């Protein structure tokens, strides 16, 4: 399978935060969800991916090309949607489109107006500064999709959207990748979005890659274990990413489903771990200094 995005040993340090040795690949034709709690480095990684930041070391390749020599070629093929307003707010959508259209060689006016109609966006009557968060997201998406981009990169696109439009939005993303030619990479901390459309999950925590898996395999690896405190001792606790103890018993997340089920047998209860569980326990595990496996 062809890789569209390649991060190889990427490091980027700031005063109080660092991306550490980030290595992963994104496959062509799929939706990949980029997850992690707020402040774990998702936006920084997306900026590295868009060449808004340059890595201190390591390499970022998009479509197999590096930004140093092929910046314009790469960006011609990328559609981007940010969580912030990035357009000139004193312009109308039509005026903004007029500015952006000549920049892209593959711009498709017919497609743009189709999306404008589908999203019910005002073209000339309203300035962009009067657009709601949802309307702005739709406008960004209409522009991102109208130049036949092969890769759509989105930073927290669903944050702040109402549930109805969120569902429509996710359905649209699902439609976009149906031809197998387009790839979507989007960051979110709303993990329920990913249940609907993600094929792969890249999970980041404190600037480090925790895992990259096919979505369906997560349930095969991770498990939420519940049981009595008598089941825990220093050896069994090592099997967990983090454990939450109460007087009644414990609940813990393990990334080695087969082994813990063999270890505890019928003495414990097992539940499928959701991405939210994984994010929560990974954060807890990190805070307590428990090793993250």
């Amino acid at each position, binding site marked *: 399978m062809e890789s569209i995005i390649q991060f190889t040993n990427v490091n980027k340090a700031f005063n109080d935060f660092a991306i550490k040795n980030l290595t992963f690949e994104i496959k062509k034709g799929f939706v990949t969800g980029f997850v992690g709690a707020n402040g774990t480095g998702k936006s920084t990684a997306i*900026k590295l991916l*868009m*060449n*808004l*930041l340059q890595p201190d070391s390591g390499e970022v390749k998009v479509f197999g090309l590096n930004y140093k020599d092929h*910046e*314009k070629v790469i*960006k*011609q093929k*990328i559609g*981007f949607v*940010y969580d*912030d*307003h*990035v*357009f*000139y707010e004193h*312009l109308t959508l039509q*005026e903004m489109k*007029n*500015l*952006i259209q*000549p*920049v*892209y060689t593959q711009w498709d006016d017919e497609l743009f107006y189709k999306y404008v109609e589908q999203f019910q966006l005002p073209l000339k009557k309203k300035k962009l500064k009067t657009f709601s968060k949802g309307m702005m997201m739709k406008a960004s998406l209409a522009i991102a999709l109208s130049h036949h981009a092969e890769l759509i990169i989105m930073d927290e696109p669903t944050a702040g959207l109402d549930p109805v439009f969120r569902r429509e939005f996710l359905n649209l993303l699902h439609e976009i990748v149906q031809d197998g030619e387009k790839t979507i990479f989007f960051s979110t901390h709303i993990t329920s979005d990913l249940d609907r459309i993600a094929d792969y999950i890249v999970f980041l925590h404190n600037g480090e890659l925790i895992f990259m898996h096919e979505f369906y395999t997560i349930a095969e690896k991770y498990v939420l274990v519940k049981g009595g405190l008598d089941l825990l001792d220093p050896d069994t606790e090592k099997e967990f990413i983090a454990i939450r103890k109460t007087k009644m018993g414990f609940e813990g997340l393990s990334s080695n489903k087969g082994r813990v089920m063999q270890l505890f047998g019928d003495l414990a209860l097992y539940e499928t771990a959701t991405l939210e569980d994984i994010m929560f326990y990974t954060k807890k595990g990190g805070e307590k200094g428990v090793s993250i496996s």
Partner: protein
Amino acid sequence: MYQLVKKDLIIHKKMLMFMFLVLLIYMYIDIPIIFLGLLFSMTLTLNLFSTDEKRHAQMLLSSLPFTRKEIVSSKYISAILFILLIVLAITGGSLLFQQVLPNGFHLLMIAIGSLFVVSFMYPVAYKFTSKYVNITFFTCFGLYLAIIMFFIPNLNDQIRETFTKIMNLGESQLILYAGLILVITYILSWLLSIRIYEKKVF
């Protein structure tokens, strides 16, 4: 890059028209054109810069298929264009109100003076933000006063003497020297701004 210059013209279209109108009003009440030209050129070129220095605009431009070199270069080209438009507006105003062409030497001094200001203003603004341009000017003025007070008490006399010598060169020689120095300064400023902007973190 042509698209970026065109974008600057479109975005500042209303501002340009408003400024031309105000410029014509000032010309009607007979304010000296050198003063007006420098003032309006500086205001417009600073405004040209500040529109795109907001984080969201920088993110937009840097995400579109442009290199950072092109983004900076377009600003330097737009600045020349905007100053040229001011010179044209002054010429038009002069023809309208005095029915004569304005002094060519004065027009060249406006263009050269304004581009010198841009040469110093843009690298400072790229390194910090445009609001630091004012702070830098005030700091330079403070330094100038400190030099007069503590180091070179007759600095003003020396400047006046140098200025008189320069003025004695004759208009064509003066324009030639000033033009040459400007070309070098503008190119160096341009390259410096590219270097600063390529390292910029959004």
